[in-house]
């Protein structure tokens, strides 16, 4: 008999960005939840870059917020600089990114967790999962304590058998020298879970006092800050911001790196894990892009109460002496003092195709997972998976239907569908180019897309929901008004158009038609629009975008309608595809391996052809009739 034995509804393993969202979602839905971490001081830790959001990641945070997640609110409380990226581009690729005060971020999230009912935080290393008859029934910790539960979410991040490496120095620790989790992998393998080994890395942190900022370009935040969370009052986030700094590597930096490549564990073979191509180490960049004679280095503060600065763009696993030498060739860093060395980290994660789109393991009922454990990368990617895994674990315990977002609903849907459907051999990062319907999946309309779902789950309150319903109506009314409102070709109108380099009117025009002109928009047209009602900015913004890009939006909506047809054809998880006559062998193998949830997902599996899908459709139709 174990000396300690407790019972919860839900166990969450890990307290990083995935674990926090999972635990909060479950506890807020009223389920008794225990969250394990190897160190309570490292809750919601940001062990790499000091920011939240960025291209497509900002979308994820917005979506998470609309569903009732915490990340957006937490960064709104703790940011020290904020920027809307891609502002000069189309609305689909605008993306919010905020520099965080790392310690503040951790502290605020911990405060929220500690004050959430039904949530218990426990510092302990989970070493085993307990599975009976294909169902998860509990976990065991290093001390031998047993926690019975109805469902569990694994969110171990980069801690499983973690190893940090630079030069020939390597230590079996998690990020920042935190204790690694060395036992759980064995228990997972014993339960039939296939593991991968991935790698990532981080640059050095340096002392601000040793930097000559006069040789760098100052990078300011936006004058008007837009909050991440739909529930944050924009006025509360207008505050003093700190700057980041831009400098560049040069030929001398690259020479030092090339001369020392043989001492890099990445090139000597000491690191086996697969690294991400989108955030290559500086030595990777120098090798892969020999023609580039300089690379950007962003010097970013780690917080308000520390002198540590993050050297974005120069992650590395070169030996300590080489790190010093190369950093010191960079203008402004000639006398730099390193506080923490750059390092690469290797860790165990899973082959994520073992998961359903609900993020539950196909072969272990009640076991869910999220975050870097699933082979993704990034705080935001982790948070949204943790949230979805937590929600679906809760739904299972509550006997409710699971929630799966599809590729036409959210970046979250794209991310999870990619993870569970496609071959993935490197830490997966979200990118706008991965979303087929990105004109519809904008960061500005995440609330309109997802808040109803959040409310239905039970994580968005009624008041917020009612505001959303009002907003929908307001947008619709205003769009309708603009389609009908006609302006004549009078002198005032023609003068206005000439002033805005726009062709004068031949006859009357609706305001909507004028909004569609590239050189005009809803806001500039206020001058001609006498009957315009007073509307909040977020409503006006939607009206403008919806009218301006109506053609493209309609096209994507048509594509989505096509996509949904296949997506709505559900497939039985126990179905044996070898029963289908004349299905090609490769297709049978792949389909039996992946067990897709619907025809749409089946069609995205590499090795399954359109003809295979046709054959499958015909066969399923026959089966359906026979069963009747």
């Amino acid at each position, binding site marked *: 008999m174990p000396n300690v034995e407790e019972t919860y509804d839900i166990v969450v393993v890990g307290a990083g960005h995935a674990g926090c969202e999972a635990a909060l979602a479950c506890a807020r839905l009223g389920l008794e939840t225990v969250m394990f971490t190897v160190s309570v001081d490292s809750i919601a830790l940001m062990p790499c*870059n000091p920011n939240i959001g960025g*291209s*497509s990641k900002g979308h994820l945070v917005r979506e998470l917020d609309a569903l009732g997640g915490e990340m957006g609110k937490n960064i709104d409380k703790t940011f020290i600089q904020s920027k809307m*990226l*891609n502002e*000069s*581009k*189309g609305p*689909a*690729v605008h993306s919010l990114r905020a520099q965080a005060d790392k310690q503040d971020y951790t502290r605020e999230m911990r405060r929220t967790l500690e004050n959430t009912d039904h949530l218990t935080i426990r510092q302990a290393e989970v070493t085993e999962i307990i599975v009976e008859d294909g169902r998860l029934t509990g976990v065991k910790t290093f001390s031998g304590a047993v926690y019975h539960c109805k469902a569990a979410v694994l969110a171990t991040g980069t801690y499983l058998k973690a190893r940090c490496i630079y030069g020939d120095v390597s230590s079996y620790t998690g990020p920042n020298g935190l204790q690694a989790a060395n036992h759980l992998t064995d228990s997972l393998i014993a339960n039939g879970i296939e593991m991968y080994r991935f790698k990532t890395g981080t*640059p050095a942190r340096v002392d601000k006092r040793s930097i000559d900022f006069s040789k760098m370009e100052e990078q300011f935040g936006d004058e008007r800050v837009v909050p991440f969370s739909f529930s944050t009052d924009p006025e509360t986030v207008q505050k003093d911001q700190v700057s980041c700094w831009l400098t560049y590597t040069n030929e001398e930096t690259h020479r030092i790196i090339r001369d020392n490549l043989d001492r890099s564990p990445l090139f000597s073979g000491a690191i086996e894990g697969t690294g991400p*191509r*989108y*955030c*290559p180490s500086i030595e990777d*960049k120098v090798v*892969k*892009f020999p023609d*580039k004679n300089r*690379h*950007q280095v*962003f010097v970013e503060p780690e917080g308000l109460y520390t002198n540590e600065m993050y050297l*974005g*763009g120069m*992650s590395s696993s070169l030996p300590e002496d080489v790190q010093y030498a190369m950093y010191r060739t960079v203008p402004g860093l000639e006398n730099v003092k390193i506080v923490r060395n750059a390092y690469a980290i290797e860790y165990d994660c899973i082959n994520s195709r073992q998961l359903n789109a609900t993020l539950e393991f196909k072969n272990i009922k009640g076991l869910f997972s999220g975050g870097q454990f699933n082979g993704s990368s990034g705080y935001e990617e982790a948070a949204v998976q943790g949230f979805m895994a937590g929600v679906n674990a809760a739904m299972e315990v509550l006997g409710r239907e699971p929630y799966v977002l599809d590729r036409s609903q959210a970046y979250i849907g794209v991310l999870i569908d990619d993870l569970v459907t*496609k071959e993935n051999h490197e830490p997966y990062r979200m*990118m*706008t*180019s*991965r979303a087929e319907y*990105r*004109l519809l999946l904008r960061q500005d309309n995440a609330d309109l897309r997802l808040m109803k779902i959040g409310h239905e789950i039970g994580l968005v309150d009624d008041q917020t929901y009612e505001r959303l319903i009002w907003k929908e109506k307001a947008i619709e009314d205003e769009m309708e008004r603009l389609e009908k409102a006609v302006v004549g070709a009078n002198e005032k109108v023609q003068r206005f158009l000439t002033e805005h380099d726009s062709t004068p009117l031949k006859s009357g025009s609706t305001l909507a038609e004028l909004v569609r002109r*590239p*050189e005009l928009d809803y806001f500039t047209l206020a001058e001609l629009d006498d009957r315009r009602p007073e509307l909040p900015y977020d409503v006006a913004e939607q009206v403008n975008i919806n009218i301006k890009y109506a053609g*493209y939006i309609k*096209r994507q909506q*048509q594509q989505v309608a*096509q996509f949904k047809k296949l997506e709505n054809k559900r497939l039985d998880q126990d179905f044996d595809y070898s029963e289908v*006559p*004349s299905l090609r062998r490769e297709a049978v193998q792949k389909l039996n391996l992946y067990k897709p949830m619907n025809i749409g997902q089946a069609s995205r599996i*590499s090795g399954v*052809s*359109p*003809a295979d899908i*046709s*054959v499958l*459709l*015909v*066969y399923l*139709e*026959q089966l359906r*009739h*026979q069963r009747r």
Partner: protein
Amino acid sequence: MRKTDTIAAVATAMSSSGIGIVRISGDEAFDVILRIFRRKNGKAPAELKSHRVYYGYIYDGEERLDEVLVLVMKGPHSYTAEDTVEIDCHGGVLMMKRILETVLKYGARPAEPGEFTKRAFLNGRIDLSQAEAVIDVINAKNQYALKSSVSQLSGAVSERIRDMRGKILYEIAFIESALDDPEHISLDGYGERLRETLKPLAEETARLIRSADDGRIMVEGIKTVILGKPNAGKSSLMNVLLGEERAIVTDIAGTTRDILEEHIRMQGISLNIVDTAGIRETEDVVEKIGVDRAKQTAAEADLIIYVVDGSCPLDENDRRIMEMVRDRKCIVLLNKTDLEQEVTAEELEQLSGKRVVPVSAKERTGIEELEQEIKELFYHGELNFNDEVYITNVRQKAALEETLESLKMVQQSIDSGMPEDFYSIDLMNAYEQLGLIIGEAVEDDLVNEIFGKFCMGK
């Protein structure tokens, strides 16, 4: 015109005789026909009634194409149980193809192989016990389409398309990496550069569309193989048929060591003629390859023209060839009637069991009789175009049209000052369409290109 889920194809066999039917099925079938059909009074019908036949003309814009009967069936009372329109036209193969292209231009998309049958089945119009038969149709048609779409495309054309795809993908990857990493990669002034890059690509696409019209890209027609012993006069015959000196003709036996392929129209019938190396037992390695290839080609042919040199006695090689053509559609030509004859037509007819036509390629006699012979085989329905080849051809042309359309959309977006992220939407469409032609899917090309060509990230 944007493609919908309304499909179209030629529903009858592609033959020069009789009436052909172009079938359209799907939600927008009626919209499509109303865009291209006008009654005798020059107007489209105000509304279409189900199970009515309309008489009139098909128009591509202002150009009148053919006199037709249009049969309208409202779903679910049709073969596919969807709204369906059938166009009965009588202009022969070329006109059917032209009408199908017009239907595609005005909003339908080419049907996938077996798709009408599939839809009929899925909509409950086909007896469920026939599911396996339906699956077999889909599989068979797909296998053929796969094989033919690749084999029909000449190497030079697929090379050009691959090259264009590469260039388009590079531009998409550049835009996307700049969007994903705006602080590392700038798009300042990019629109103007892209415009310059796209100009030659759009021109190239337009050229390919024009050559698709001439039938120079995708070879279609009755696959006809000329077979015979070395120096029987196969290449001379080919030249006579083509009316030009194309194959190398010498008096040395075994000159044609590879396979020559040409496309001709003979009294309204398309022939895709292949000249082959002479068939004989040989020790010459190069010649042997030619011989093997000739046998292979003959095995895939719709029609074999077996050329016999009448001035030499028949030998073991002739018997071998006669064995090869035993169960095949074959016309035997007794060539070199201008020289002293060692073989008679009667003798040959008895031995081969095929029709024998005496000709002289050199004197150009007997050629008309040969044409007559082919024509009769065709009109008696013993020879057919392969529908799938046609469909593939139309499909490929439709993809090229859509590529051009997408490239123009990008240019329009640049002109009207749209943000750069809109460019990549249309570029991606062009890239996908070109991929359809050469049978290459998208998969993870873009992500690989982004990481391979552009340096991103922290």
